[in-house]
């Protein structure tokens, strides 16, 4: 009886009750500590697997920034049984698709293949969860690739440099103030043994979660997972240290002039509570607020600043509460052609003050909540959405229930709570205003001065 034998690997089985929910998953945990979440989706004969490790750049030690991301790259460079680069080749040979990403709080790997190839990709992830081989001859060229990536994303892109600088000024001496990809001088010094060490300290079944979404049934996945992931050995990983106390509030203003920029941009970033750092349920109120301020062209700020006052030509608000530490509430604006960015800066401040003073209309808040709750249905029409939602929640200390109850929690947000979040946002003592400005008419000397050599640029640390 294969089935009975496999049950030994199953520690916990949680079928969730069907109420107002999002993905209706089945979640279970193997005896080795690996959590598996299954979301059936029978629209196409495809399956997506995401493996999330509870480690990100915020878990790096001093002087080794970029190590989490470097290791993510090296996860494709071979195991005891698989040659460098063979992982992606094997997936491609099935018409499949694979990739990975690193963030402050997590590192994730994902594959999409035909549904009957699920055992294959489970084998491959199980293999590199325990048998990764990091060799200097592949690790060295991969470090150059990472440096090229940093060049492409940040060093050679004014927007990238601008974002990096804003983050760093807003949260100096805090892990979230360091770019995920790392500081150039520190990346350059990373070695194969640093990566091996990091792998041993953080990569283990008991420090990961696997989400399977697609044309599968929970029963079969459970059996498959138990036989493939079950035999992996649990081992001690470095205890995730709590993030340092929140960074000291600062109110910054930063202006960057760059000859590579043609269109000015204004950003206002505010440090606000996340799901983890909230005292009550205010993160949900911030989610409603973000949607109310910027929901396409009916957003309150869009109506005011773009349609009525004509000081901006575009606006984008973002708020991502899935973080172990604090979250950022960001409003990015494009000035209307012919208007000075400083004018827009004042208009934004005035508009927010005004909104905070009068409060957002209760009906508008109810409509916004309705819209957000309906998003849950659209989220089901996606193969990868379950992986993202559960992966982010669980690696930042939350649960399947937190994801499934999201529509109910949005529903429970009161207009008072949204207006309180707005008042707090406006009065928040921890923020940065950044202006990215073009310099098309500067002299050649001024242009060159505006392009400091990168090592200087990064030398602020």
């Amino acid at each position, binding site marked *: 009886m294969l089935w009975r034998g496999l049950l030994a690997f199953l520690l916990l089985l949680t079928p969730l009750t069907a109420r107002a929910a999002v993905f209706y998953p089945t979640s279970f945990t193997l005896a080795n500590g690996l959590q598996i979440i299954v979301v059936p*989706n*029978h*629209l*196409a*004969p*495809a399956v*997506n697997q995401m493996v999330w490790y509870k480690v990100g750049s915020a878990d790096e030690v001093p002087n080794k920034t970029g190590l989490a991301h470097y290791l993510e790259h090296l996860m494709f460079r071979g195991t005891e*049984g698989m040659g460098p*680069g063979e992982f*992606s*080749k*094997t997936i*491609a*040979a*099935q*018409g499949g698709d694979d990739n990975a990403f690193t963030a402050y709080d997590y590192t994730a790997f994902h594959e*999409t293949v*035909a*549904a*009957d190839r699920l*055992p*294959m990709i489970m*084998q*491959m992830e199980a*293999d590199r969860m325990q*048998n990764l081989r990091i060799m200097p001859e592949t690790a060295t*060229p991969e*470090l150059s*690739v990472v440096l*090229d*990536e940093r*060049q*492409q994303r940040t060093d*050679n892109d004014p927007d990238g440099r601008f974002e990096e600088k804003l983050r760093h000024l807003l949260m100096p001496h805090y892990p979230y103030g360091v770019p995920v990809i790392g500081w150039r001088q520190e990346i350059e010094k990373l070695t194969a043994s640093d990566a091996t060490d990091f792998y041993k300290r953080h990569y283990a079944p008991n420090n990961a979660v696997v989400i399977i979404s697609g044309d599968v049934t929970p029963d079969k996945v459970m059996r498959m997972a138990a036989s493939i992931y079950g035999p*992996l050995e649990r081992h001690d990983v470095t205890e995730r240290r709590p993030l340092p106390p929140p960074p000291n509030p600062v109110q910054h203003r930063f202006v960057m002039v760059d*000859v*590579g920029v*043609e*269109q000015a941009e204004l950003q206002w970033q505010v440090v606000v509570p996340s799901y983890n750092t909230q005292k009550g349920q205010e993160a949900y109120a911030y989610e409603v607020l973000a949607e109310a301020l910027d*929901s*396409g*062209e*009916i957003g309150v700020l869009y*109506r005011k600043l*773009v*349609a009525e006052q*004509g000081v901006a*030509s*575009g606006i984008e608000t973002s708020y991502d509460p899935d973080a172990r530490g604090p979250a950022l509430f960001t409003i990015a604006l494009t000035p209307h*052609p012919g208007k000075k960015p400083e004018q827009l800066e004042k208009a934004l401040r005035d508009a927010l003050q005004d909104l905070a003073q009068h409060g957002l209309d209760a009906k508008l808040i109810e409509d916004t909540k309705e*819209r957000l709750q309906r998003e849950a*249905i*659209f989220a089901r*029409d*996606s*193969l990868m959405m379950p992986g993202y939602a559960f992966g982010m929640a669980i690696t930042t200390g939350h649960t399947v229930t937190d994801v499934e109850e999201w529509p109910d929690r949005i529903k429970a947000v009161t207009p008072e709570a949204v207006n309180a979040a707005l008042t707090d946002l406006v009065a928040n003592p921890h923020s940065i205003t950044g202006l990215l400005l*073009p310099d*098309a008419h500067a002299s050649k000397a001024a242009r*060159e001065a505006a*392009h400091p050599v990168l090592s200087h640029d990064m030398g602020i640390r």
Partner: protein
Amino acid sequence: MKNIFPMFVLLLLTLTATSAHAVNIQEVTSNSGIKAWLVEDHKLPLISMHFAFRGGVEQDPVAKQGLANLTMNLLTEGAGPYDAAAFQQQLADHSVALNFEASRDALLGSIKTLTTDKEKAFELLHLALTAPRFDKNEVERVRNQQLAALRNQLGSPGWQVRYALFQRIFGSHPYGERRLGSTETLASLTRADIKAFAASHLARDNLMVSVAGDVTPKELAALLDQIFGDLPKDSKLEPISEVVWPQEPTIILVPREGTQTELLFAMPGPKREDPDWYAAEIANYILGGGGFSSRLMQDVREKKGLTYGISTGLSPMEHGAVIIGQAATDNAKTGQAWDIAEDTMHRFYQDGVTEKELESAKDYLTGALPLEMTSTDKISGVLIDLQLEYSGRDYLDRRNDLIRNVTTDDVERVIHRWFNPEGLTLGMVGRPEGVIPTKTEDPVHN
């Protein structure tokens, strides 16, 4: 774990054939004769529709570049009884995602709605297509948004090199034109231009529709007339000539401060209806289309670490076709990276491909398409692409055989026809060392 590895090998050996994928595409015809492709699926209470009108950015007159794009962006800015704000409010209140865009050869639209809100959703779509208001204030607002997008583009090295390269290979052909226009052409567009463009390009004779999700063929037939039935029967499209490829190969440089050089290279390629299309897709996959498995990625990234990415792609258009390649590398290493890339391309041209590479490419290409169709909007999106490239409704059933039947001889033939690196035009933006340009262009600033 020692017992992991043997099981792993076993699984790899037993799972090499790609599973068949049957998508049932129905053709639905309305009373008035409007046709649509439908993949009916009632699992989720959602409907996704994609539609396209042939004739896109290429239709912009030279002095009115940016017109197609501006017109499409204005369709959701007020129609019938609703001004822009009211129209947008209706969309939001009913959670309707309605989008329009202008592509090179077609005007594209898509709508996604919950089944519960379908009536309102399709009423709004009908109004957007047949009664757009183009109110003066909204024209100015959306023009300014397009101007901001244009300035963003002007500052982007990727766009700068693309524009310089396209100017070179397309010359005065409409494919060399700018989707967002220039500051001058964009400022010159009038409400009358916009109305005339919509009237002559949104019609029933150049329309294609595809739908996926919670709708029956009968319902859809009625919807087609309700949504599109009031459009004029005939479009009035400007005839577009075929692209004539420039004779001498060129290396163009757009100087730009910074640490990195972006490279873009182009060769004439196959059009979609060419009988050798599938062999060309395979050749491209092996050379640079196959992500980490491609020869260029292996040689330039995996072995040498000289780039974060290098790739090639086939870009078939209505009136011409190119093979486009791109890479980015450190300024100081540009010469080294390009030497390796050129060498890889020369060896590819001279030696062709191996049986093993051919098989891997076939495995990928036959397996990949079904995996793209994983949501209702992705399904309707794939179906509209198939219609735009003149594939029949039975294409998904035939495609695997078309790919499987390609031989190494076929691939060798297409490599000699299209993949000769001697004939490529190279564009660079940055301060590259080690590659000498034959032509230096000033960056465009308006």
